[in-house]
């Protein structure tokens, strides 16, 4: 499923709102989620999962081509942990051929 398919499904669920509102709503939700993570905030959606940041300390890496040592600075990476309901439903979908 892509973002546009998601918008189509939401439009079908709420025909009184129209495609424009569904489109805008999806944009607002995703932008806010990205903005929160960028500020270092966690996201917790009951039944779906949580997004948090994982810290990666600075390390000495290697340029795989030349073998030169390079300093890789510290960074944060987004991490998603599926919630109980999502985890169980997805696991059950693996039991029957998709």
């Amino acid at each position, binding site marked *: *499923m*892509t*973002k546009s398919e*998601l918008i189509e*499904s*939401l439009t079908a*669920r*709420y025909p009184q*709102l129209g495609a424009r*509102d*569904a489109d*805008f*709503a*999806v944009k*607002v*939700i*995703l932008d*806010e*989620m*990205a903005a*929160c*993570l*960028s*500020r*270092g*905030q*966690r*996201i*917790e*959606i*009951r*039944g*779906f*999962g949580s*997004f*948090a*940041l994982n*810290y990666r300390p600075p390390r000495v890496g290697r340029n795989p081509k030349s073998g030169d040592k390079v300093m890789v*600075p*510290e*960074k*944060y*990476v*987004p*991490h*998603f942990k*599926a919630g109980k*309901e*999502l*985890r169980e*439903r*997805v*696991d*059950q*979908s*693996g039991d029957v051929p*998709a």
Partner: protein
Amino acid sequence: MTLTKAELSDLLFDKVGLNKREAKDMVESFFDEIRNALSRGEDVKLSGFGNFQLRDKPQRPGRNPKTGEEIPITARRVVTFHASQKLKSAVDDLSHANTTTES
């Protein structure tokens, strides 16, 4: 401060002009649609944000960390999230801003 469905529906009320009920339903449905697609065995790609992918894991040996007893970890299907390049670099800017993830 943690972002939850409540804050997201307030935002739909303020920015999109949905009424409180519609805003709450829309947020609920947004995650419901993604959950349904994943439960149907479909990957979900949200451009600019990231992809949710399904991975089938084979059975592997494990042990009970308390007792040390060996028990197999059964084969399962799991969801993994891969942030888009855009989200990754937005988040990475945090380390340069010298802030912490403490909230």
